[in-house]
């Protein structure tokens, strides 16, 4: 990293994002490191900022509570952030894991889930992309999901939203291919975070949030177009994507 690094994290109190921030703080040594932490809960963001400043005394954090749904609000938030300095890294990490059954019964829930997991991250990325293309530098990392690779009955509302993120990132990568702006699409598998607590109860084996964050931080520094975290999900999803429909439809996943 350069002498002064500016990292913007959208959805900074998500467990994966917080652990990415810790690792960035840990590796930056004594260089100046500036975080912009965007979230909904001021107290949690303050606690994360305090933690980061112990991990790296050279780290400072700006805390922003913002509206994640309205396009105009997103445009304004991003313009304000960019006015404070061009980001070296933007990590777009917010999201929720909706209950598929409830989404099927209540369209409002389905719409909210699509909005927060699909449309909102994409609008944030789009807002940053214009600014970063103009200065021709930086990395935009967006957290998608393995769930976006193929729709499954157990969570296709979430999967569809994340599929939108995938296709969007693909397009943005195409647009910025000749530039110095890198776009990294991250697809975590099920990770041990508060968002997935109910999966753990069902005996799912979940990757540790530390290892997922390490994979993401590595992928971002390399500028890899697609990062599966942990890496084994690349293989698993390749198989699942290619299963013939008559096999896939018999599976209870």
């Amino acid at each position, binding site marked *: 990293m350069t002498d002064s690094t500016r990292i913007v994290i959208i959805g900074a109190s998500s467990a994966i994002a917080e652990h990415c921030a810790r690792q960035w703080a*840990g590796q930056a040594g004594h260089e100046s490191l500036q975080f912009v932490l965007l979230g909904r809960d001021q*107290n949690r963001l303050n*606690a*994360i900022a*305090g*933690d980061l400043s*112990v991990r790296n*005394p050279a780290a400072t954090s700006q805390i922003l509570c913002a509206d994640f749904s309205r396009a105009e609000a997103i445009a304004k938030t991003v313009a304000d952030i960019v006015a404070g300095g061009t980001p070296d890294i933007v990590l777009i990490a917010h999201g929720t894991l909706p209950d598929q059954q409830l989404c099927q019964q209540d369209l409002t829930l389905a719409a909210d889930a699509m909005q927060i997991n699909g449309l909102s991250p994409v609008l944030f990325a789009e807002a940053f992309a214009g600014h970063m293309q103009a200065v021709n530098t930086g990395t935009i990392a967006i957290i998608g999901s393995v769930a976006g690779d193929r729709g499954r009955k157990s969570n296709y509302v979430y999967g569809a939203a994340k599929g939108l993120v995938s296709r969007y990132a693909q397009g943005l990568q195409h647009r910025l291919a000749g530039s110095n702006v890198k776009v990294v699409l991250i697809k975590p598998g099920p990770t041990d975070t*508060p968002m997935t*607590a109910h999966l753990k109860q069902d005996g799912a084996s979940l990757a540790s949030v530390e290892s997922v964050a390490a994979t993401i931080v590595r992928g971002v520094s390399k500028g890899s177009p697609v990062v599966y975290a942990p890496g084994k999900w690349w293989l698993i999803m390749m198989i699942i994507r290619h299963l013939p429909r008559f096999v896939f439809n018999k599976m209870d996943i």
Partner: protein
Amino acid sequence: MFMKIASWGRLAEHPHEVVPLADHRTLVQSIQHGLPGISYGMGRSYGDVCLNPAGTLWQTRRMNRFISFDQGTGILSCEAGVTLKEIQDCLVPRGWMLPVTPGTQLITVGGAIANDVHGKNHHVMGTFGEHVTSFRIARTDGSTLDCNRDHHADLFKATIGGLGLTGVISTAQIRLRRIDSPWLLTDTVPFTSLDDFFSLADRSETDWEHTVSWIDCLTGPQTRGIFLRANHTSEAELTEKQLTAPGTRTPSALNMPVTPPLSLVNKLSLRPFNAAYYHMNARKAGISAAHYQSFFYPLDKIQHWNRMYGRRGFFQYQCVVPRKTARPAIADMLAAIAAAGDGSFLAVLKTFAERPAAGLLSFPLAGATLALDFPNKGARTERLFARLDDIVTQAGGRLYAAKDARMPAQMFAEGYASGLQEFSAFRDPGISSAMSRRLLGS
């Protein structure tokens, strides 16, 4: 969420209602339901101090943020779910280390306080609790109390070594110690009798901060072992040769990927292992350098090492016996173990110094402590423990609760008589563990 949870000894795996605590600010609301519960951190306690079968476990691990660190005074403030490893990974490079750590750094700050853990430098630094300047504790009645040696001093003292029974620690302030480097200068001294051990221990106390010894518990009265002593040092005081010697740096990570059906520690393996271990180390006798991680936490490098004892799990038996009776009591115990034909290769013998206890139920006493691992062989292991209990009780000693899964309530009551009466007034009625029901009746 109901999950099957075992402690480090893997003796039993019972379903628990696991409630993750998200952060220290919301903790007090989270612990007012599903009572009684008990805090659970890294699950590195060997026995049942962190278990509550069919009941609630408050999982503290996600409550793992640093709050502040004063580079001038070395005072760290953090949430109770932070591990000792996280603290040292962050602060050792800046010249600060925890003054007291046990043989693993994969434990939480809350667990270190609740068990008032000790390390190889007890005669210089005492227990972990001595370096805790204050903490905040939440109780199941909805109250939150800030405790230190002046304010709620009695609850402070009851909570240090209080087995998690006085409330849930949310944040703590710890005074770290300065170090010049991550390096230690070590001296390895083989010995061939208990008398040698005790005289080495006495002679080493003034000049060496860390002392510990491994013993071959199969050799009976002519106990052989390896005495290890060390001091913190600066890199400048070490030679290039010392710094680059094999085994000096942290060893690479290993893993025990599966649980074997039977214990790998058994009659066939133990005798050759102990002989090889003794001779390997005897050859290394003398001065060398060690990185703090390989010196303090050699087993942390082997993930899931507790699986090597097989599916039935294992016990750790750690006692302390007072100085006056230590020599004969340790000899009797070693004879009993040799006679039973069972043994342990993690046999650790160490002396404790006379120090005022940090907590009401703190384990150390001036004297000697012996720690041994035994694969669980049911009634046969129980018989050996009954014999060892007799020796310890007769000698005026006691067992370490952090390691215990089976001591009789009577033995606990006698061993901890001095603090137990006072302790009961500070218990949180909404908190109970398998251990508290076994040893305290509730």
